[in-house]
């Protein structure tokens, strides 16, 4: 196992793991960055969503060896003080219920807004369709994305 260099939230990290290990488990178990969640391990729920060079990806489906040269952003890197417009909107709309899916929801929404500053309902559906919320907070998620877009995320 050769060490792998990672750039996460602008800080360099070095890990020694099997190169096939999904990024999700490197974050959670090796680096103790537990904001990124495990929900299904199969790319079906979106709880593990992070950004790779700004694109939303499912970290449970991303081998750590494939991200060594990329810029990784996790929920912990979105802001240090809940000041990201999406975080503010999430609080204003009181989105989280149990909260478990929310880091993944917010990361998917952030990637959407970075590309599409004023998304339509349909664009929200297609960008967010991979993120399950078992607590069913979907209309709040939709409202919060519109709110953040209105405030120029």
């Amino acid at each position, binding site marked *: *196992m050769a060490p792998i260099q990672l750039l996460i939230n602008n800080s360099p990290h070095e890990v020694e*793991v*099997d190169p096939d*290990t*999904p990024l999700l*488990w490197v974050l*959670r*178990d*090796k680096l*103790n*960055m*537990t*904001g*990124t*969640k*495990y*929900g*299904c*391990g*199969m790319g*079906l*729920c979106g*709880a593990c969503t992070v950004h790779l060079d700004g694109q939303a990806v499912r970290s449970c489906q991303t081998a750590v060896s494939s991200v060594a040269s990329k810029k990784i952003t*996790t*929920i*912990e890197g*979105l*802001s240090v003080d*809940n000041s990201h417009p*999406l*975080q503010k909107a*999430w*609080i204003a709309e*009181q*989105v*989280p*219920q*149990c*909260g*478990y*899916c*929310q*880091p993944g929801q*917010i990361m998917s929404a952030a990637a959407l807004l970075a590309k599409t500053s004023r998304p339509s309902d349909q664009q*929200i*559906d297609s960008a*967010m*369709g991979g*993120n*399950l*919320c*078992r*607590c*069913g*907070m*979907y*209309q*709040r*998620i*939709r409202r919060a994305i519109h709110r953040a877009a209105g405030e120029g995320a």
Partner: protein
Amino acid sequence: MAISRRNFVVRSTVAGAGLLVGLRFSGPMLLSQESEKAKKKGPVNPFDAYIHVHPDGNISLIVAKSEMGQGIKTGLAMILAEEADVDFNAVSVEQAETRPDIYEHMGTGGSGSTMENFMPLRRAGASVRELMITAAAQKWNVPKTECEAKQAIVRHTKSSRHATYGELVDAASKLPLPDPEKVPLKNESQFDLIGHATPRVDIPSKVNGSAGFGLDVRVPEMVFAVVARCPTFGGKPLHFDASKAKAVPGVRDIFEIPALGKDMYTAGGIVVVADSTWAAMKGREALQIDWDRGPAASESSAILRQSLRTAASKPGKRIRNDGNVDEALPSSAKRVEAVYEFPHLAHATMEPMNITVHARAGEAEVWAPTQSPDWVQRTVAKLLDLPSQKVIVHTTLLGGGFGRRYMADYPAEAAQIAKVVGKPVQLVWSREDDMTHDFYRPAACHRMRGAVNQAGHPLLWSHTITSTSIGAFWGSPDKLEESEVGGAKQMPYTIRNVRLEYSAVPSSVPPLWWRSVEHSFNGFAVECFIDELAAAAGRDPVEFRRGLLVKPANWKPKDEDDPDPARLRGVLDLAAEKVGWSKPLPKGKGRGIASYHSFGSYIAEAAEVTVTGKDFKIDRIIAAIDCGQVVNPESVRAQAESAIIYGLSAALKNEITIKDGAVEQSNFDGYDPIRIDEAPPIEVHILKSKEDPGGMGEPALPPAAPAVANAIFAASGQRLRRLPFQLKT
């Protein structure tokens, strides 16, 4: 002074430590300032929670209630702050350590948290305020009635004097507590917090990844474990070969744990312990196991469905029998019959089951996302041969509960593993484990029979329920119907001849309460069948229901679950008004309604749908809610939205099926809850009410599916009687 069940007991606390008031949430009202003597009184202290007023005037409420997203911590802080008359932000709610020697009632479920806590907490809060006023009045030597408390300050306006709670707390802690039954409470018009939307305190940590769920527990030296369980219920490993698994990098240990008996109901299996979750999962994949598939290896949903249908056509145990449903009907009567069928369902909480246990010499520490920390404690203590007090349980945040996290199976497995491992070990259930070894909502079949006369009035209502009884499985043979007939027994419509019967059908699929328990199917059967009767009578479904929700002048509830017909009619009317019930809809669209009472709350929901061939879309849902006195309307709304989507996932998509004794669905591909593009807009309307607070975690669920089914009927003429829905063209 001894602790009596009726009186306050007053003790001075250690000087300078502030004021400590114990309270209980059920049974006779009791408050006490804690004392050394009370602490020593014996193993069982009668308090469920403590209020600690600190010398700086801040207040902690120390209570064992699990936060599953229902906003319980916010609600409790609001109630306390309201009556104690302090700023909401001055109150912090702390999760109590699990110590049944101190806290007796620790479960969180049955939508009960606000219901049980409301009055005791108000009285306790008011007692704090009263003590502060008394302390101030004594200090200034003025009559109490001239003093006023507001925002943690007592004022005597006449002499322009004031003192903060912090300044008064020492004196207050030496005073006798007022009688909790007599302490003056605010009246509703004085409420600044109760009934006002208040942002939840748990939310900020849930938008930045810092909120700590069970799976997020990280302790030094910890290892991770997964268990390979037999796919069939009651099966066990015959032989296993771990050589390949041991070769997986990071795998440390592999051993077998036995299945545990019925009160815990674990599958047993082969444990893989590793340095990381991923290594443990890879190790498990590499195991070679021959299973003895056990006694239930031939169970299937197809066969079970037939058994349920057969049982539903036979008489069962009589639960309710008004008049005589076998009475001869006039020849002009129209008869209606329907059979409703319900599959098994998984809870599928977003965070899969998990728990972290550290067994040390003579003690253990547990970090658990659980709805019943005291059961976790007893279970772990038993399996580690420790006295309960030697097991500390930290309750983490829960990534969903829905009834599943009441159970002690995953704690039991983790204790078995921790005993061998000797280090802190996190037991992780993969999504597949979670879905294939859940405790499932019972499968059920309901047969309904009814008739209406020529004038459009119902003559009889006969309801036969059969299900894979929760009571039968968990071992109370005299109470097979206990978690199966609620809501059907209290069928609220005034009909002269009513009968309800119940029979259980055996199944090896372990059943459990699922969100809203039996109301999830009884609400469907009752609210769809009343719609079928309305259609047979040629009458409007709202007007038909209204006419049957009659509250006699001398009405009294028959039991605590008996709904007040007037409150049910109140929400029915509100939902009808808000959806615009009488406005015509274009062809292909339909409107349906359902109104239902459960967990002390009354909820009517109206649905609008568009049907195109075999497809349909829910255009919107209107919910009208009477849940008594509302503490935080924001939480009421959120929980209603949540329960509706949860119910619709079951109505539209989800079903657990059994084949060759095993669950066929293993992840969100086979059991896919509603996603954002399928979620209808939901509009929630809350009725003003002074009644006692009802629950809100569950009661919005039961009316959702029948409202949609009734709307689909209105749009297409098709009655959907089996869940999940499937339309014919």
